[in-house]
């Protein structure tokens, strides 16, 4: 199986992207930009929604190859729907993250997709996790990034009850964290996130934080842009917030 090229020329449509998820007091915010590009040279879509619902209160952000990410989330959605009928209860966020992890890890040679999972479940509340599946890192335990400056694929799953976020990066690792960022644009906002994220923020503070982070990343990463898609998940439900490009926060040099 030939390896995907490490440089910016990814075959097919890629989501050079910025995705993130953060927990606040009572919920979790998951968000992404909306640009899809080919080879970093051509914007094939300005308005892609990279935040995918895999269950009633569990969402996923995709990064990397859009086709791969869509195929994986489609399979995960089916799997979780079946699982929740069998269990007679909505799936736990950790279960959703594990499903994505298995798909990413077992197919890591073929896939270039990573995910952030976040959502709400009755046991642990809001949660965030990250997972990655790629052919470069080849490891289940390390959080080694690919050599290129672009993230290949990332998914973010978000659960609720203590808000939970899980990240499943390219290799198929699974990590639960209070806040996580992914995609090529994330490299430009690590400092901002480290400095500005606080646990147990209010809903408004967290939304502002997420919007700022996305705006900053979109401002520097050429393959991230468009609008900011945000989803707020709490015990009571799910709310979509879309911030169009011209309404994004502006900073001193704009």
């Amino acid at each position, binding site marked *: 199986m030939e390896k995907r090229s490490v440089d910016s020329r990814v075959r097919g449509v890629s989501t050079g992207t910025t995705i993130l998820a953060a927990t606040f007091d009572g919920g979790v915010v998951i968000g992404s930009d909306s640009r899809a590009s080919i080879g970093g040279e051509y914007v094939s879509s300005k308005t892609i929604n990279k935040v995918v619902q895999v269950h009633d209160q569990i969402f996923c952000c995709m990064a990397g190859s859009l086709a791969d990410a869509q195929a994986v989330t489609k399979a995960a959605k089916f799997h979780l729907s079946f*699982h929740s009928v*069998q*269990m*007679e209860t909505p*799936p*736990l966020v*950790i*279960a959703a*993250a*594990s*499903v994505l*992890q*298995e798909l990413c890890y077992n197919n890591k040679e073929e896939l270039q997709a990573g995910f952030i999972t976040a959502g709400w479940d*009755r*046991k642990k509340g809001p949660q965030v996790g990250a997972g990655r599946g790629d052919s470069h890192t080849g490891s289940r335990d390390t959080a080694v990034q690919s050599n290129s400056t672009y993230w290949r694929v990332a998914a973010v799953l978000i659960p609720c009850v203590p808000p939970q976020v899980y990240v499943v990066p390219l290799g198929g690792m*699974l990590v639960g964290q209070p806040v996580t960022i992914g995609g090529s644009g994330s490299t430009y906002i690590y400092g901002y996130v480290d400095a500005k994220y606080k646990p147990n923020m209010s809903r408004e503070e967290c939304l502002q934080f997420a919007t700022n982070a996305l705006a900053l990343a979109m401002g520097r990463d050429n393959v991230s842009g468009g609008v900011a898609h945000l989803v707020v998940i709490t015990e009571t439900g799910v709310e979509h917030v879309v911030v169009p490009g011209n309404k994004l926060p502006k900073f001193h040099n704009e």
Partner: protein
Amino acid sequence: CSSLGTYDLSASTFSPDGRVFQVEYAMKAVENSSTAIAIRCKDGVVFGVEKLVLSKLYEQGSNKRIFNIDRHVGMAVAGLLADARSLSEVARDEASSFRSSYGHDIPLKHLSDRVAMYVHAYTLYSAVRPFGCSFILGSYDKDDGPQLYMVDPSGISHGYWGCAIGKAKQAAKTEIEKLQMKEMTCRELVKEVAKIIYIVHDEVKDKAFELELSWVGEVTNGRHQLIPEEVRQEAEKYAKDSLEEEDDSDEDNM
């Protein structure tokens, strides 16, 4: 029940009155085994097994009839012990595979359904015989509370507050029904379980026996374990004392 002609030779044959005799014969194997009981209370589940000791040469504690299936699930069996051991491995595989796919403990109802489905499969063909054992599964989870399920050779599983299998199951059920288990704690229940096993044990037909006791509940932090030595001694003393009292009161009545 008597068999009619050739309807009892394989599990793939119904009798004219709609029975599968092989399955009924399998249940007979369970009825010939010594008794096992399990009771669910407010904060956990307690298992008790009357383990008949057929020879003084046996090492003490050999041929255990209570198994661990994953950390949070216990299984007590009655019937053909080899069949039961094989099923305990099936249960362990199911629990392990669930944890691997979904990242969390298997819910007891789901485990019970899966193992019951497996047992049922062996009642469909003439090439195999049904399992000659029944078993009781119990678990405790801080969100879902204590759970108790029993599976019989036909592949049916039910949830219970209190359940008995084996030769003295009727007598044991009568004793169990006298208890207000929903209001009891595990510590109180251990003594009652020991007492019931001592009551139903037939001193005339069966000589020596070992009492196997285990529990899973808040008291063990959700882990299934054998009862600690001091608790067991207290329970056995209570059981023996209660029997003597009853013997005394019987003599008075005479």
